[in-house]
């Protein structure tokens, strides 16, 4: 079942509809409820390689539905320390639980100060309302 629309308060958001959960010098990244809803049921996640570098505001992977392909934009920079293999095998997990089991990658942050430039949940919801 598709998840209900939510934007948790403990996450940071990027205007390209990506989220980050910062934990010390690491962060978990994923796509927002809005992004998965716009795409529809996900059928493919093309992940980055573990050990590769991702750069804030740049694409680090792709997600695909039956009809569409979308780049996944990194909200923060860092080194990929883990790819969510469960999502590679069953991409629809992202639709079911975009902020939980549907996370995409975990990175070691290059610059912990970068997170300050991201949106909080209220600001992101405001952005969605304006679209």
């Amino acid at each position: 079942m598709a998840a209900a629309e939510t934007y948790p308060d403990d996450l940071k958001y990027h205007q390209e509809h990506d989220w980050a959960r910062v934990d010390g010098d690491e962060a978990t990244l994923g796509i927002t409820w809005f992004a998965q809803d716009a795409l529809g049921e996900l059928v493919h996640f093309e992940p980055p390689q573990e050990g590769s570098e991702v750069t804030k505001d740049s694409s680090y992977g792709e997600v695909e539905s039956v009809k569409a392909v979308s780049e996944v934009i990194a909200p923060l920079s860092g080194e990929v320390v883990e790819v969510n293999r469960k999502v590679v095998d069953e991409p629809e997990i992202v639709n079911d639980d975009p902020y939980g089991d549907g996370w995409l990658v975990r990175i070691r942050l290059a610059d912990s100060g970068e997170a300050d430039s991201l949106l909080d949940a209220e600001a992101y919801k405001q952005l969605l309302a304006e679209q």
Partner: protein
Amino acid sequence: MQTLERTPLHGRHVELGARLVPFAGWEMPVQYEGVIAEHRAVRTDCGVFDVSHMGELEVEGPRAAELLQDLLSNDLDRVDVGEAQYTLLTNERGGIVDDLIVYKLDPYHFLLIVNAANTRADYEWLKERELRGSDVRDVSSEYALLAVQGPRSIERLGLPDAKPFTFAEGELGGVECMVNRTGYTGERGVELLVEADDAVRLWDVVLERGARPCGLGARDTLRLEVCYPLHGNDITPETDAISAGLGWVCALDKQFTGVEELRRIKEAGPSRRLAAFVMVDKAIPRAGMAIAEGGEVTSGSLSPMLDVGIGMGYVEASGAAPDSELTIDVRGRSRKARVVKKPIYKRDD
């Protein structure tokens, strides 16, 4: 900005929460709840598609059959009243102006159901070539068309059995319509041609009888699994029927537009062929992607039944045989695919 046309069922789509997208100048439902679930409903039970965007042309008069026999690739003489035929409108180079189904209403009266994007071009093509005694009319705006498809579709609608590519006047829940045993999904089913004013009533009857509303997203994945070509993608005015694997709808022993060129291609053997393939590597092919061995993907998607990437594309004839390996350029990444016999999907029963 061009405004999009709406079918008589537009309000019903909105009420059902469909995602509406522009398609061939129309605002059409691409999905209601999800492409995959809708696709599976048609493969296992029954789904209904609003395909009212498709065009309807009538050709009538004592010389209607003569006109169509000259312009369409298949042999119209083999079609009796009450029967339909899949055929191609071809150009001088043997290219495909459109693919369509022709219905013989009576010996002097034919209905052509054509692709939405080509309705105007087809009409003009026929009109310019009209004979004295063959009147061509575009009646698209008078009708709506519902495709009810799936293994249980006939049973759910309570229709009698009938052969594929036949049609009859019928009635469903008090709504009169033309019941055509045709479709674009590879499943048994009907296409119901109904007067535009009756479309909503018919749609409601079909839904009450258990058909699941399905969008154009599922229509595309369904037709691709069974390798039905999509005009504009797999077949175009620049591609010929022989290379596309549509030689079976070309009566090369009769005269029609472009037949000499098609005979020549058939005789020499086409240099490229429209091949169907299944991804070996994990990736989803998309139209426009290059094939390293030579050629290009013309249709690609995920197969909801097989759960792998599938597609069709033109490849060198030497590499078009089943089991040939292809390498698809998926946005800069090389991904392996394997040519398969058409159709890609067939129920194992």
